[in-house]
């Protein structure tokens, strides 16, 4: 078992963009949008049996016809400036009901993605996910960018609406990225390949709901547009943002008044502008503690 290639094109200076499902599928939706808009061709896939439990059985007239597994597929597109490979995972190879991959299987899958990157000569990899953050849903989300090499930081700082960990309040450059969107960065580093994870911010109190958060996906796509040097059509995403904002407001209106009151205090925190912060650090700490108590969650990267 391993990787099946549907074709083996000669690619020019390619980059690889990968994503797996995660919180609100922020990164996955961004990568799927790019993949769709570029009308890519299938390149290959990681054989699923070793990693996944099947997702569907098809029985016809009493005969087992098919067993479908989650897919982990590569696509490619030749572009003027440089070619691009996408990797889209249907699921993370998690066991025991966990949402994120970990352990040997996670390492193996991340390694196989990097194997493909190396085979086609990729010298740059991007992954994408969600950044659970102490922001209010009326704020415009930023994109947290985590490189696997210090030499990439100057490049990241040139991208609009992007912050590195040391620019995020109280983070002091520290944090973690859960699951394969993070692990792939580490495996790339081990092999000497530059990689960056782009994570769109989602309010801490929305991370547990089964809703997309396209505002963050849109922010990630804008960064990808700068990275890749082409214009991304955001019209469909804008429509999705409008629809989801209505759903988010309805959800928010159903929170108990005391919860809404606490959450609304987050409106006063202006991200990435510590000097302009109109509430004290103590206030902020209290707000986050109260929200944590209400939702049993804490801010983190995914």
């Amino acid at each position, binding site marked *: 078992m391993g990787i099946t290639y549907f074709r083996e094109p000669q690619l020019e200076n390619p980059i690889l963009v990968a994503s797996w499902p995660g919180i609100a599928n922020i990164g996955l939706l961004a990568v799927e949008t790019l993949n769709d808009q570029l009308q890519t061709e299938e390149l290959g896939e990681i054989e699923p*049996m*070793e990693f996944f*439990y*099947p*997702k*569907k*059985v*098809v*029985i*016809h*007239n*009493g*005969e*087992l016809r098919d*067993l479908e597994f989650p897919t982990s597929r590569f696509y490619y597109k030749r572009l003027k400036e440089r070619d691009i490979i996408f990797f889209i995972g249907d699921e993370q190879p998690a*066991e*025991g*009901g966990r949402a994120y991959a970990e352990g040997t299987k996670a390492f193996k899958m991340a390694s196989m993605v990097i194997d493909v990157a190396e085979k086609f000569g990729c010298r740059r990899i991007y992954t994408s996910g969600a950044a659970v953050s102490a922001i209010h849903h009326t704020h415009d989300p930023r994109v947290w960018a985590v490189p696997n090499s210090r030499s990439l930081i100057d490049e990241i700082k040139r991208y609009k609406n992007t912050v590195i960990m040391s620019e995020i309040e109280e983070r002091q450059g520290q944090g973690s990225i859960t699951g394969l969107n993070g692990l792939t960065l580490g495996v790339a580093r081990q092999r000497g390949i530059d990689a960056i994870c782009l994570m769109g911010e989602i309010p801490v109190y929305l991370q547990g709901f089964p809703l997309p958060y396209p505002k963050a996906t849109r922010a990630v796509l804008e960064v990808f547009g700068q990275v890749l040097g082409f214009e991304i059509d955001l019209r469909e995403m804008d429509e999705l943002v409008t629809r989801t904002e209505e759903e988010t407001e309805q959800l928010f209106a159903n929170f108990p008044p005391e919860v809404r009151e606490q959450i609304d205090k987050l409106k006063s925190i202006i991200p990435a502008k510590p000097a302009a912060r109109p509430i004290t650090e103590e206030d902020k700490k209290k707000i986050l503690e109260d929200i944590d108590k209400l939702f049993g969650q804490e801010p983190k990267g995914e």
Partner: protein
Amino acid sequence: MSEISFKLHDDVKFECASLIVGWYEDSGNTGYGSLNYLKDKVNCRLLAEIEPAGYFPMNNILISDDVAQFPESKLYYCPEKQLLLFLSSSPSGDWYKFLNTVIDMASYHCRLQQIYFLGGMVTLNSHTTPRQISAVVSAAGVKKLIQGDEIDTSMDYETPEGQRPTMNSFLMWIAKKRGIPGAGFWIPVPFYLAGVDDPRGWLKILEFLDKSFDLGLDFADLDKIISAQEAKISRARNENGELDELFKRLETGQLLTPEENEKIVANIEEVLKPGS
């Protein structure tokens, strides 16, 4: 096989056999209950087992009915009937490797002629409704081996969104890829017996296996277990007019509300719990 990935208890080799597979934690304990009964009846002996580490969480143990449990995956052999029985807990990870090991383990001892898979299928019918077994085969040719009045082999099914295929379907698919014919048998289990034993369902599949493998089983003891269970249900109905009314509606094919179904489940599980 390059290396043995299971624990051998007996290195015996024989020509060929059929393998029957059942899982613990099945609706009505159908797979485990019927195979465990069969194992004792046909004098099976332990041949081999799969060690749990790597397939089951080893960070805690479950306690059930006051007793600590531990996952087990054991292969038994009945030499007189050329039958292999595999009884196992459902693994929670590395399924593909585990299921291939099941086939490797059975194939170590003999050539596998066929694999039968047993499982319960929850229905909204009552226990007094006649049961019909449904079968799924790995290839159309297998149908002729199992067809009979009591087996429905015309099922159409696709896993609904949000659900996953059964371990039996996964194992049958692997067996098919390895060229071993297979048939899965689904025994209807009344919803209120899904969490407890359903001996009438066991009897239904055991009668089929008895005939298929010419086992010559005497079910008198199982009949007694069934009668005792049904007597408890009848007593509960006699003592609880509302419950009896719900059962009457169920028996006449009426659809009950989820709350009414839950009421039946709570009452029946209470009267059938161990020691009651």
